[in-house]
């Protein structure tokens, strides 16, 4: 058996023009701005860190309680609390850049203009590898309809951000739709360079004693191992309709699930909720992936991508 550090296995993957050290990234909102995990994980080894969603201004976020545990999952309604794009650029990014960490900025807004504003502000920023567009947000200019639920809105916001920034643009799709493939096509039409699949599933729970929603904001996003089969299916659906690079996200808790994502056609993956209960998982997955590829006789992890057989 080859050792985990076997350098003869190439783990580098290309997400469009962005070359990543390896296909193991950490998902937005689940790894803070990276520094929170610095004692535990060598940030520089990760394929990339997608930071907590940034908006034009500081966001206070939703009232607590903001999380609820569910069977193999959790609901969150953080409400996109974040330090705002300015503080990110001055307080968070510089030290990550110095360490050579691959940083992807997840961004969001309440209108196309807000999205464009954040993207413009980040455009010149040194040390950013890409933008990831969180489109699972209500558009307050259009009756609160969610950008990510409507192909036309998805295309529009993608195109606007693409025009506003020279950074590679990843669009993160919402699973709460009838046909995710339509949204994938729309994002591609808007100029997306890659697709991140998936964001959280909408859900809720109730505290029976008080007969109130467990979350202060009633609804939340379901994440964690529970959603893995849905996420894998959606990556499969997206892969059917586009040749854009895909980042598989949802319920990763083990190498086996990383491999499943790659086999159905994801080019890289993002570890989310598992960072909370197993904070060193992302780093271990890199070693395990190298070892597995070695054991399987693969020289390059890309050989695995999209190799799903047909029964």
């Amino acid at each position, binding site marked *: 058996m080859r050792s985990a550090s076997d350098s003869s296995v190439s783990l580098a993957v290309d997400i469009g023009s962005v070359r990543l050290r390896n296909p193991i990234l950490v998902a937005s*909102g*689940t*790894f*803070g701005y990276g520094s*929170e*995990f610095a*004692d*535990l994980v060598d940030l520089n080894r990760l394929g990339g860190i997608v930071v*907590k969603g940034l908006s034009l201004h500081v966001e*206070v*976020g939703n009232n*607590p*309680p*903001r*999380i*609820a*545990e*569910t069977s*193999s*999952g*959790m609901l*969150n309604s*953080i409400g996109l*609390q974040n330090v705002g794009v300015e503080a990110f650029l001055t307080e968070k990014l510089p030290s990550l850049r110095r360490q050579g960490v691959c940083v992807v900025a997840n961004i969001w807004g309440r209108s196309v203009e807000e999205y464009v504003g954040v993207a413009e502000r980040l455009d010149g920023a040194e040390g950013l590898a890409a933008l990831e567009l969180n489109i699972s947000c209500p558009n307050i200019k259009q009756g609160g309809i969610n950008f990510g639920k409507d192909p036309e809105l998805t295309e529009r916001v993608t195109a606007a951000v693409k025009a506003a920034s020279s950074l590679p643009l990843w669009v993160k799709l919402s699973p709460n739709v009838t046909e995710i493939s339509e949204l994938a096509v729309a994002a591609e039409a808007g100029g997306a360079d890659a697709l991140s699949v998936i964001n959280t599933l909408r859900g809720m729970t109730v505290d029976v004693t008080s007969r109130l929603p467990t979350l202060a904001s009633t609804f939340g996003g379901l994440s*964690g*191992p529970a959603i893995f089969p849905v996420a894998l299916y959606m990556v499969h659906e997206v892969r059917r309709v586009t040749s854009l690079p895909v980042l598989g996200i949802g319920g990763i*808790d083990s190498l086996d699930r990383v491999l499943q994502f790659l086999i159905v056609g994801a080019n890289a993956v993002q570890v989310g*909720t598992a*960072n*909370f*209960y*197993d*904070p*060193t998982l992302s780093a271990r997955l890199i070693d395990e992936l190298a070892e597995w590829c070695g054991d399987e006789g693969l020289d390059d992890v890309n050989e695995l991508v999209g190799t799903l057989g047909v029964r």
Partner: protein
Amino acid sequence: MLPPPGAGAILPSMPIHDLPLVLRQLRHVSSQQFVLELEGPEIAAECSPGQFVMTTVGGDGDPLLRRPMAIYRVLRDENGDATGFSMLVEVVGRGTAMLQQRQPGDVLNVLGPLGTSFRIPEPGTPAAEHLLVMGGVGSAPFPLLAEDLLRQGHSVRAFVGARTADLLLCVDDFKELGVPVEVSTDDGTRGHHGFVTGILEPYLMGREEGPAVLYACGPLPMMHAVHAVATAAGLPLQVSFEAPMACGLGACLSCVIKLRDGDGWSYRRVCQEGPVFDSREVVWE
């Protein structure tokens, strides 16, 4: 005497470990409360009173999230070197019930030490009176705090409340340390019949002038009441908060409470800016 409010731990921040720790002993202290002793010096040697850990409860990914638990006592060998630490746990739901089922030899994955500690006076500061006010399982961090304070020559006194006599915690710890203890129970089965403020207030009335510092941990209404007492008496109070937590590391933003911020307030993380806060900084509502 205290560092500026909200300034965080006074100790240089120690690295956080994530370790599989072997359970040495599980000791019941009541039908719903137990002490878990874990082996391993790393977290024990570097923690300060008030800090906590995030621990798995036994299942393999079930329940999904780790549970936050205060560090109760540091376990030491005959040379006084830290060999492990313990947690004092009350069964309130599924996770704590699973924790109660653990057996010596079982392994828990433990992340820590986490959060801010109680801020105690710099060594050399003139001795003062330190009053520890606690309710229920909120008692857990106080014996360790008492140890540190005593070591620096301060006088320490404990006010321990619980729903009923059986659930009074840490009274023996304090007695061993030579810390005077007064107790109260909601149902009057031991000590003062009523809430813990019912013993704290008379004590404050009766005591001689001189510097005093209050520390409180327990149910929210109890801490709120202690805050009112402290404010009325003009004494500083440090409170240790609980909040639902997913990561304990400051990354998920799930554990926020409202802290004063300029003229308004902002949400701050209990796991990072807390769990110990200056009570004047908290937006009590």
